C-alpha cells in the first residue's frame, strides 16, 4: 500500500480505499496459479450445462435430446428476470436433459443439458458489432440482459436482476469489484493482467448503460501486475482506480462500499438503493463480449489451483466443463489430493462429486492437499478471547452469537445481528479453539428461516380452514333460508345466484379481510410490536 502510494502519488486517477474494520490477512496461496498466462481449454468431449447457475429460477430448455446445436445458439430461455438465457458453449448434439450434480448450493442436483461436442466448434452467424457509444441505455440493457450473464464474483446474482434494480435513476457510482481478497482465487487478477483493455471497456459500457457519474475500479494494492496493466487505461475517461489494503474480506460488497465511500450500506438495503452499483470484473468482461463482439456468455476465467495440481493456472473454461476433466488437464496427483473446493478457501464449498460442471459463478477450483486443507481440529471450549469480534467486518460479537446459537435463542440471535453476518469466515479462521463458528450461524439461520416458513404455512392453512368452515356455515344458512322462504323470492334469488362469480369474489374478499383482521389480532396479542390493532373477530 505504501509503495503504491509512492508510485501513484501524483496520479489523480488513483484513490485509496479506507481500511475496513476487522478482517484478516490469511496466507494468499496465489502465486502458483499466476505463473502462466490465461489459457483457453480445449473443447471437452461432453458439456453439462446447468439450467440454474445463479440465485434465482431455473431457465426453460428450448432444445430437446437429439437436436444438433451450434456454438452461441440459445439452448434455454429465461423463465423470469431472476433467470438467464443459456447458450451452447460449443457445437454438438444434445444427448439428454436430466438431473446432474452441480456446484450451485441452492440447487445441488438440478436439470442440466448434456451436449456431446463434435469438436468442430461451429458457430451460429454473429451479427455485426454494435456501436455502444451511440446507444441509449434502453437499447443497451436488453443486449446485456439477453447475453445470459450472471454475477461472476461467486454468489451468482443474475445480472438482469442486478441491472433492473440499477435503473433507479439516482445511481451515481459504479464500482468494478476486482478486489479478489479471498485466498487461492486469481481469476480476476489474471483476467485484468491480460485483458485490461476489455475490462475497462466493459466497465465503460456498463457505466454508459446505467448512467453512472463515476466509475471506480477497486483492486488490492498488492496486485501490482494487474494495477500496472490498468494504469495505462485508468486515465481514460472517468474510470478511476481504487486501491485497497489487502485484507480479507475487503471485496465483500458491503465492505467494498464502506472502503470506497466511507459509508455503510444500511441494513436490508441493496447497494442500488444507496446509489451505488457493484459489479465484478469478470462480469464486465462478459458485458464487453456481449456488446462489442455480440457474443453471449459461454465461458469464464476460472482459477485451477491447489498443491495436488502439477500445473496450476487460469483457464478460460467453457461453462459446463466438468471439474474432473479440468483437474486432469492440470495433471492432478490423486495421491496428494485430499479435498476439492469450488470457490476460495474461506467461502468456497467442498465438492463431493468432481463430475459436477462449472457454472458462470465458479471463479476457482482447488484440488487441495492435506497440508493446504488440514483435517478439522476438534472443537474446544470458547475462551471468549474476542479475536473473532476483532476479525468481524460487520461489527458482530461472534462469541455471543455462538452462545445463543448453541442454546437456540433465536430472538436474541436476530437481535444481535445474526442476519447481518456475511458468512465470510474470518471468525472461524482466527478462532484458537477451532470452533466452526460460521457453521453454527448457517444452521441457526436455516433453523430460524424454516421455523418462520413453517409458521407462515400453518397460518395459511389455518386461514383456509377457517374460511372453509365459514363457507359451509353460510351454505347451511342459505339452504335454511331458501327452504323457509317463499318460492317467488327463491326464483329471484336463483337469478342472483349465491355462487355467481361476483358474489363469490365479494364473499371471499370479505372473508379474507376478516381472517386477516383475526390474524392481525393474533399477532398483536403475541407481539405487541405489530401495529394493526384490530378486533375483527370473524362474525360468522
Amino acid at each position: 500500500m505504501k509503495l503504491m502510494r509512492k508510485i501513484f502519488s501524483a496520479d489523480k486517477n488513483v484513490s485509496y480505499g479506507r481500511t475496513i474494520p476487522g478482517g484478516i490477512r490469511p496466507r494468499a496461496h496465489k502465486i502458483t496459479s499466476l505463473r502462466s498466462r490465461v489459457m483457453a481449454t480445449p473443447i471437452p468431449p461432453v458439456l453439462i450445462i446447468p439450467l440454474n447457475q445463479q440465485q434465482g429460477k431455473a431457465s426453460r430448455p428450448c432444445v430437446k435430446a437429439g437436436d444438433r446445436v451450434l456454438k452461441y445458439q440459445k439452448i434455454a430461455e429465461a423463465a423470469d428476470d431472476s433467470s438467464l438465457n443459456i447458450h451452447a458453449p460449443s457445437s454438438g448434439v444434445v444427448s439428454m436433459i436430466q438431473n446432474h450434480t452441480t456446484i450451485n448450493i441452492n440447487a445441488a442436483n438440478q436439470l442440466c443439458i448434456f451436449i456431446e461436442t463434435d469438436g468442430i466448434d461451429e458457430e451460429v452467424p454473429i451479427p455485426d458489432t454494435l456501436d455502444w457509444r451511440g446507444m441509449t441505455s434502453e437499447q443497451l440493457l436488453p443486449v446485456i440482459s439477453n447475453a445470459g450473464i450472471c454475477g461472476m464474483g461467486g454468489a451468482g446474482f443474475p445480472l438482469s436482476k442486478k441491472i433492473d434494480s440499477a435503473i433507479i435513476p439516482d445511481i451515481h457510482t459504479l464500482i468494478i469489484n476486482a478486489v479478489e481478497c479471498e485466498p487461492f482465487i486469481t481469476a480476476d487478477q489474471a483476467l485484468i493482467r491480460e485483458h485490461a483493455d476489455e475490462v475497462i471497456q466493459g466497465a465503460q459500457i456498463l457505466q454508459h448503460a446505467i448512467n453512472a457519474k463515476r466509475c471506480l475500479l477497486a483492486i488490492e494494492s498488492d496486485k501490482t501486475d494487474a494495477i500496472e496493466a490498468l494504469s495505462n487505461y485508468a486515465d481514460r475517461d472517468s474510470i478511476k482506480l481504487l486501491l485497497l489494503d489487502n485484507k480479507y474480506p475487503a471485496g465483500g460488497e458491503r465492505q467494498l462500499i464502506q472502503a470506497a465511500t466511507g459509508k455503510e450500506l444500511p441494513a436490508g438495503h441493496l447497494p442500488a438503493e444507496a446509489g451505488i452499483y457493484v459489479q465484478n470484473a469478470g462480469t464486465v468482461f462478459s458485458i464487453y463480449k456481449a456488446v462489442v463482439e455480440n457474443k453471449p456468455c459461454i465461458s469464464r476465467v476460472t482459477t485451477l489451483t491447489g498443491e495436488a495440481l502439477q500445473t496450476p493456472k487460469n483457464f478460460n473454461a467453457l461453462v459446463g466443463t466438468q471439474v474432473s476433466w479440468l483437474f486432469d488437464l492440470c495433471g492432478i496427483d490423486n495421491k496428494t489430493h485430499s479435498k476439492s473446493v469450488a470457490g476460495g478457501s474461506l467461502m468456497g464449498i467442498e465438492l463431493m462429486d468432481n463430475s459436477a460442471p462449472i457454472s458462470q459463478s465458479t471463479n476457482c477450483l482447488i484440488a487441495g492437499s492435506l497440508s493446504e486443507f488440514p483435517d478439522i481440529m476438534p472443537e474446544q471450549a470458547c475462551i471468549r478471547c474476542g479475536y473473532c469480534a476483532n476479525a468481524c467486518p460487520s461489527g458482530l460479537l461472534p462469541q455471543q452469537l455462538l452462545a445463543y446459537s448453541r442454546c437456540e435463542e433465536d430472538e436474541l440471535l436476530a437481535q444481535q445481528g445474526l442476519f447481518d453476518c456475511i458468512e465470510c469466515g474470518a471468525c472461524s479462521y482466527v478462532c484458537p479453539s477451532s470452533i466452526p463458528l460460521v457453521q453454527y450461524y448457517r444452521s441457526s439461520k436455516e433453523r430460524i428461516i424454516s421455523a418462520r416458513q413453517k409458521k407462515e404455512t400453518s397460518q395459511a392453512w389455518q386461514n383456509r380452514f377457517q374460511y372453509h368452515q365459514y363457507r359451509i356455515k353460510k351454505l347451511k344458512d342459505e339452504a335454511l333460508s331458501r327452504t323457509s322462504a317463499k318460492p317467488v323470492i327463491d326464483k329471484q334469488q336463483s337469478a342472483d345466484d349465491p355462487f355467481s362469480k361476483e358474489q363469490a369474489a365479494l364473499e371471499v374478499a370479505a372473508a379474507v379481510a376478516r381472517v386477516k383482521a383475526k390474524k392481525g389480532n393474533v399477532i398483536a396479542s403475541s407481539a405487541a410490536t405489530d401495529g394493526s390493532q384490530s378486533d375483527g373477530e370473524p362474525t360468522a
Partner: protein
Amino acid sequence: MITSSPFQHGKQTVGDIMSLVIIACIPGICISTWHFGYGLILNILLATSSALAFEAACLLMRHRSLLALKDNSALLTAVLLAISIPPGSPWWLVISGSFVAIVMVKHIYGGLGQNPFNPAMVAYVFLLLSFPLDMTSWHLPIALENLTGGSAETDINLASLSPLSWQRLKLSVLAALPFLSTFYENPQSAIGMIDGMAMATPLIEYKMAGNSAILASRDAGQDIFSRQSGTGWELTNLSYLLGGLFLLYKRIISWHIPFSIIATLGVISFLFYAPNSSTVFGTPYLHLLGSATMIGAFFIATDPVSAATGNNAKIVYGIIIGLSIYSIRVWGSYLDSVALAVLFGNFCAPLLDHYFRPRVYGHGKQGNSGSTLRKPLLSLGDKIES
C-alpha cells in the same frame, strides 16, 4: 465427511496463547527470584504440579479427554496464583489455593471458558480470607538473619549470602515444606522462621507507616537496579510491564484493558495525591510500581474468559478495575486490592458486554439492530463477491 467453509485456518491455538502468556511472565519471575530468593519458584512448582493433577482428576471425573490438559490453561492459572501468593508460604496454602482455582472455580462451573470469575483471583481471595496472616506476610529468607542468629547456623553469616545461594534455597524449601524440618538438626529454627519473617509490600508499608523502603531508597537516590534498593518491587513491576508489552506485540491481548486500568489508576492517584501531607493516598509512583498493578493490568485482568469482550466494554471494564483498585487500596480495609478489583470487574463484565456492544454494520444506533428481526431475508442474498 462433508465440511463447510472456511477450509483455511489460522495456526494459533488456545495452548499457544496460554503458553505465550506464561512465557511473558518469565522476566517478572526471574527478577522476583533474583531479589527475593527461591520462594516464588517453589510456589510455582507446587502450584503447577497440583493444578495439573486437579485438572486431570476433574477431566477424568467429567469424562473428558485428558488432551484438554494441552490447552495450558491450568498451568497459567497456577502460575498466576503462585505469583500472587507470598513467597515462602507453606505448601498447604499453595495447594489449597490451586484446588479452589481449578476445581471450585473452573470445573464446577463447566470447565475452560465457563467460569464467570478469574480462578486464580478467587483462589487468592479465598486464601486471603481464610489465612489473612499468611497471605499478607512475605516470608523472606532475607529476614532470616535475625532469627537464626543463635541457632545452628551461627557460623554462616547469612547477611552476606546472596538470595540465590544454596543456603537460602535450603531455607526456602524449609519454609515451603515445614515438615521437612523433622529431618533437620534444629527443628526449632525452621518453625521460628514461619512465624516471624514478614515483609509487607511497599504500598502496605506506606499505608501502615506513612513511608516505605521503596520511597526511602528513591529519596536516597539508590539505584533500583541493585539489590540494595530495599525492595525489588519497581523492577518486578517493570519486568511484568515488559512481559505485558510482549503480549501486546504478539497480539495476544489488546491494549484496551491494561491501558485503561493504568491510565485510570495513574490519573486518580495523581488527583488525590497531596505532596507533603500525611494522608494515606500514596503517590502515583507507588500505586503503579509499588504493588501488583502491572501484573494485574496485563496478566490478570486480561484473562479473556472472565473479562468483558467488546473493545468498548473492555475500556469500561478497565476503568472499573482501576477505580476499584484505588478505592480498595486507599479507603478499603484490605491491603492490596488487585484481586478484589478484578473480581468486581468480573461481576460487571456480562452487563458491560450487553450495554457496550459494538455497532453492527449498516445499523444506526444499537437500538436499530433489532430491525433485522423483521426483514432478515433481504440480507441473505448478500454473499461476498470476492
